[in-house]
């Protein structure tokens, strides 16, 4: 009511050399950590170095690709639901999606070079001597893997570019027809995403343990994508606000993002329990082996720590209204959630790849810092190319006046 005469002006993010140097240092730190880890483990018996290296590369590459993909999904869902509040921050998820081609290239490189260490089904001798795996061979083969990845991620990137191009055109022409086109296209994108993302999670994550299967696994992956993506959007918004940009973004928008971080942390737990409980109750050997490995002596601590850091910590940090509106609590919760889901992905990848040799060392942490550095660089560089405020969006004024009562 009070801010009816609000000014909505274009803003340009200045990706200055100081910020650039910081991001380059992050990438260099990741590279140094990885190389140090590789040299420390070089020549150890049983291909330990290769297994841990490619496992952690896959983990970090998949993690950043998921977060980047969440940018496009966020845009798609907000178009589809005709959401107004998010118009003020929509340039951030748009920019996050620009990392997708780099993400899929790194994933495919990891597959080409290190597949025999990560995906045991890709070794012909293993495949030929295993009748169970041969039954899945129409799905678990190199052609489908590469072709599927290129087609699916290509489609996602096409939609990312499409939404962004039309949104920028909207800023210039201020035509509401463009918005309606984007809404229709978003419907198509969400349908394609919904059907293809499960396949991606089966290909890149579930086939690490090729004998094991779980029908809720793709929703579990989606829960990780969504909660980490929202958290990353929130972190970028806080970073830009700290620099004095995004003047029309207020505590109310942060409150909404905080609520989503809170709610989808609980959603992730719901899916986690659903998967665990059914496998625990049914106790089928081929399913239960997955949790037997993870609850054992090697990963037991991390397994239960996973629930504490991804469920209890966000629940307690973000429970009150004030916590969701304050910069410091949001940053704390963001670090906890992103770190927590790193641990979550570690438990999805490492027991299958490295088994009992897996520990957390430089070689596991390095690739994550490296890929996150590249992701941050691409996102910030693409934020700097366009106005930070989508001035032509039909709901931009509604978003600027957005208020949550009480």
């Amino acid at each position, binding site marked *: *009511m009070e801010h009816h005469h609000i000014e909505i002006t274009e803003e340009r993010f200045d990706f200055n050399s100081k910020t650039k140097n910081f991001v380059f240092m992050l990438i260099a730190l990741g590279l140094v950590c990885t190389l140090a880890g590789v040299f420390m483990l070089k020549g150890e018996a049983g291909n330990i170095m290769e297994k841990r290296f490619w496992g952690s590369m896959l983990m970090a590459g998949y993690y950043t690709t998921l977060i980047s993909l969440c940018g496009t999904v966020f845009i798609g869902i907000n178009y589809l639901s005709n959401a107004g509040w998010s118009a003020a921050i929509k340039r951030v998820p748009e920019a996050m999606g620009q990392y997708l081609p780099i993400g899929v290239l790194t994933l495919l490189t990891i597959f080409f070079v290190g597949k025999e260490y990560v995906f045991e089904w890709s070794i012909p001798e293993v495949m030929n001597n295993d009748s169970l795996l041969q039954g899945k061979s129409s799905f678990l083969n190199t052609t489908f893997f590469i072709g599927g990845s290129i087609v699916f991620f290509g489609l996602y990137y096409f939609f990312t570019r499409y939404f962004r191009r039309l949104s920028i055109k909207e800023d210039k022409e201020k035509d509401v027809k463009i918005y309606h086109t984007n809404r229709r296209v978003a419907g198509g994108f969400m349908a394609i995403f919904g059907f293809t993302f499960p396949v991606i999670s089966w290909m890149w994550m579930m086939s690490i343990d090729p004998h094991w299967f779980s029908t809720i696994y793709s929703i579990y992956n989606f829960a990780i994508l969504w909660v980490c993506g929202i958290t990353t959007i929130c972190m970028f918004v806080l970073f830009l606000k700290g620099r004095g940009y995004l003047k029309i973004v207020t505590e109310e928008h942060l409150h909404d993002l905080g609520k989503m971080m809170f709610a989808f942390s609980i959603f992730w737990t719901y899916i986690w329990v659903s998967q665990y*409980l059914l496998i*625990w109750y049914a106790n089928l050997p081929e399913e239960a082996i997955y949790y037997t490995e993870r609850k054992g002596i090697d990963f037991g601590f991390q397994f239960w720590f996973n629930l504490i850091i991804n469920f209890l910590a966000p629940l307690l940090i973000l429970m009150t209204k004030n916590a969701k509106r304050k910069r410091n609590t949001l940053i704390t919760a963001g670090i906890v959630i992103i770190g927590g889901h790193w641990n979550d992905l570690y438990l999805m990848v490492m027991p299958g790849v490295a088994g009992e040799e897996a520990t957390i060392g430089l070689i596991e942490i390095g690739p994550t810092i490296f890929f996150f550095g590249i992701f941050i660089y691409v996102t910030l560089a693409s934020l700097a190319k366009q106005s930070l405020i989508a001035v032509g969006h039909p709901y931009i004024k509604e978003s600027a006046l957005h*208020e949550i009562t*009480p």
Partner: protein
Amino acid sequence: MKPTNFIAGVFEDPELIYRAAKKMNKSGVKIYDCYTPFAVHGLEKTMGIERTRLSIAAFIYGCTGFTLAVILQWFTSYMDWQINIGGKPNTPVLVTFVPVCFECTVLCTALGTIMTFWIKSKMFHGVKPDLFDDRQTSDLFILAIDADSNKNHDAINQILRENGAIDIRTKSFDKNHSLIQ
């Protein structure tokens, strides 16, 4: 205890009642309540209403529901009569308790919160509506001030008139909250 005598400013525009409430608060007059057909954003802040404590109540209901669910399952499936389900261990492990705990927490929170809301805002079955004007649920905005505790009626009337009230009425309710005049 609800006051019995009111000065009611009647407005036709949410913007006007918002400004009037702000002026009224600034000049030190305590507003009893505003009646609007829809939520006017920011009005509750200008009226000087404190933040609701309903969320604290909801948290307590949630904890109660969780505790009740744990006690129920612990007593029925472990303490009183141990049930053998597929040879699963009979220790009180929380894994099997999770779904029921979740549902009970949600149920108790939802029912408890809505009941508290009804009781606090006196919305029972068969309650007589104490409306200032029948149109306050349709297209009129009413700013009500307690006439007994605020003595400077002329100043109040002037603020209301200056901020675009189309009518200023004095209203009285009896003990059963029904309108006398």
